[in-house]
């Protein structure tokens, strides 16, 4: 059973555009929602994270939007660049264990 559902599976965006990746969850015990970025040949690495007491967190061109009532959260990449091309994973965590989404392959076209 997939605890965190992620979409789309793949995404192609023009340079300068906005990339949006969505995730949804059911378990209300989740209290921490990170996003991980993975470049080819590397392990995923933490990009940005949010807790459910805020609705938005912004770090540079990356923003997490969080909708607690809908149990959804999304990653927005503003002014997308070719260097952002990677696989992105959302995750959710209750007290202990991480649960990861299935990933989104983002390609930013120059």
């Amino acid at each position: 059973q997939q605890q965190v559902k992620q979409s789309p599976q793949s995404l192609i965006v023009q340079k300068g555009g906005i990339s949006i990746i969505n995730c949804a969850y059911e378990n209300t015990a989740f209290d921490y929602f990170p996003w991980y970025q993975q470049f080819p040949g590397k392990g995923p690495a933490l990009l940005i994270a949010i807790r459910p007491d805020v609705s938005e967190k912004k770090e540079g061109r990356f923003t997490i939007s969080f909708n607690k009532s809908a149990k959804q959260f999304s990653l927005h990449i503003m002014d997308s660049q070719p260097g952002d091309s990677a696989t992105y994973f959302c995750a959710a965590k209750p007290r202990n264990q991480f649960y990861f989404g299935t990933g989104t392959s983002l390609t930013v076209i120059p």
Partner: protein
Amino acid sequence: GAGVSQSPSNKVTEKGKDVELRCDPISGHTALYWYRQSLGQGLEFLIYFQGNSAPDKSGLPSDRFSAERTGGSVSTLTIQRTQQEDSAVYLCAGQVNTEAFFGQGTRLTVV
């Protein structure tokens, strides 16, 4: 990254052989995960170790797969009688508080 080492980085094995993959996190990683990532695919959860608790083995795809974590640190994932569908990148992650630190993975190819 951040103190998680995996070995070997690449492993080619013949179908039917057993393989052992090693994960070496730094001390302080309270939990340890194994994931499998097939080419172009997402993270498939395999197993989770947390302290002295019984591991969560719910993701292991068959009884050919097993893992152990010795002394709360080093972990070994063993695949017996490897099959071609086992070919994938096997990722290990150590958890420190709210962050998971992934190793670079072991690319397993079964020929």
